[in-house]
């Protein structure tokens, strides 16, 4: 049963994407932490500046 090369490529990429779900969630968590810390200091700044 023949599969066209493009199909193979598509399948490989899809494979790779699914295999990176844990990474995606991890970086979102890390990014969220950094955003939260930034916001804390931002509000500290507003408290003092305004």
């Amino acid at each position: 049963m023949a599969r066209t090369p493009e199909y193979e490529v598509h399948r490989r990429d899809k494979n790779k994407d699914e295999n990176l779900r844990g990474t995606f969630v991890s970086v979102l968590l890390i990014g969220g932490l950094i955003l939260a810390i930034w916001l804390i200091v931002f509000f500290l700044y507003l408290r003092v500046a305004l």
Partner: protein
Amino acid sequence: MSTAATEKGETLAKHRYDERDRRLVLAHVGVAVGALLIGAIAGLLQVMERAGWIRLPAGINYYQMLTLHGVLLALVFTTFFIFGYLYAGLARTLDGRLVSSSRKWAWIGYGMMTLGTLLAAAHILMNEATVLYTFYPPLQASPWFYVGLALLVVGSWVASAVVIINYVHWRRRNRGESSPLFAYMALATVILWLHASLYVAIEVVVQLIPWSFGWVDRVNVPLSRTLFWWFGHALVYFWLLPAYIYWYVNIPQIIGGKILSGSLPRLTFILFLLFSIPVGFHHQLTDPGIQPFWKFLQVALTMAVVVPTLITAFSILGTFEMAGRARGAKGLFGWVKKLPWGDVRFFTPFMAMIIFILGGAGGIILASYQLNQLVHNTWFVTGHFHMTMASTVGLTYLAALYWMIPILRHRRLTPAINRLGIIQTVIWTVGMMLMSVTMHVVGLMGAPRRSSFSTYGGHEIVSSWMPHLQLISVGGILLFAAILLAVYILIHLWFFAPKTDRPAEFPIGVVYERASEPPRILERWSVWIGVSVVLSIIAYAVPLADMILHPAPGALPVRPW
């Protein structure tokens, strides 16, 4: 076929380091470890004085220790390790050995850097250069301190030339091929360094040496600060990039995974080259004499330099996940359990990465324009760079030394030493979290950095700081213990570990077989050097012209210590 290591999965023939390359790399490592130990001792004395637990003996003052600590750890330990590591990796990946004609230059560079280090360190110890590692004029040290620094920098240019010679030699013999990833990244690192260190060389050689010898009376203060930080921020990337090389190139092989992409890591290094240099103003946000527009422009460029780290975070974690899944891990986080936690060569840099999350958060805050007013020159800054520099970079460098030294000394990294290394990392991490997190907090409470023990006339705010300052010192003591353990491990590996005539391999990762070939443009260095220079000009030309053409009256020397 050469014994070179490539990332294409070709069978790696057993590589043995040429005796001459071994000596060269070990010479650099030796100075690095010496600087680490002495710099750490200075740090210990500082934290104990700072908490009020000791009074430094007569003849030694806090600021002298601080200068020694900064210069030895931030300038000497780093530079010597970096060139040792780059030479070792180049020999490994390019042709199995360094180009013969380049070795003499490597020794010349080494000699200059060592002589410069000794000159500078001697004058610090003689209390002739208690100016801290930023040496801002009009504070004036002995001219020989500046001469020592100049030698260190120029020596590093010679060392950089060695990297370039080896890279070019390989490219000429392998026309049309993408260079091995290690070599590519090594070249990007020295290009960044050559561009950035030019500015501090101008400050030291053109401004400070003539002024300190008395050949000119006055010094242009904002110009010197600007030149320093034009260099100073890029300096931290000169340190960070070799750590990233470890993460991108060594770690995949250590964990039995693959480098996800041959292109994306190259792109990140290009982005660092472009955006790590035209950003020095974020260290000068509270300075006079610089228009807000230029400060904000460089803040924007600073945010840009976060991007390659975002890419790196994804790529590195992705390598971990793919390696875990290839071993059968299931679910969202099953791959975490498959990682070699018991292997110090992985565990230590992993802790470095974790600490980097917090360090990076603090860095973004520091660069956020007005937010800087809450934290500039407070302990927050010190907490930030101990996390990013001392931990992310320092721990990664230590991990590299744990396997590099045995390879070069034909000895074995034993399970016992491996365990000790893990213990060292745990003590370090605990001490660093305690110390640096507290530094961030007390900095937000207003406690200044770079200051000896003081009650500020009994002001109430100081009593609110005191418990935090004690905690910082406890963390510092733990860190010193961790460094002592690390130095013990390194000495043991050097002299006492069991010998072998089949040393381990310098781990070089293999690229994921489905990754595409890197675009050729990523290797057209003239393009990227050009863009890097143009960005520097855009970011600096106008404010710099203002400082040079409409200067304030220069300042006379002052020696207030």
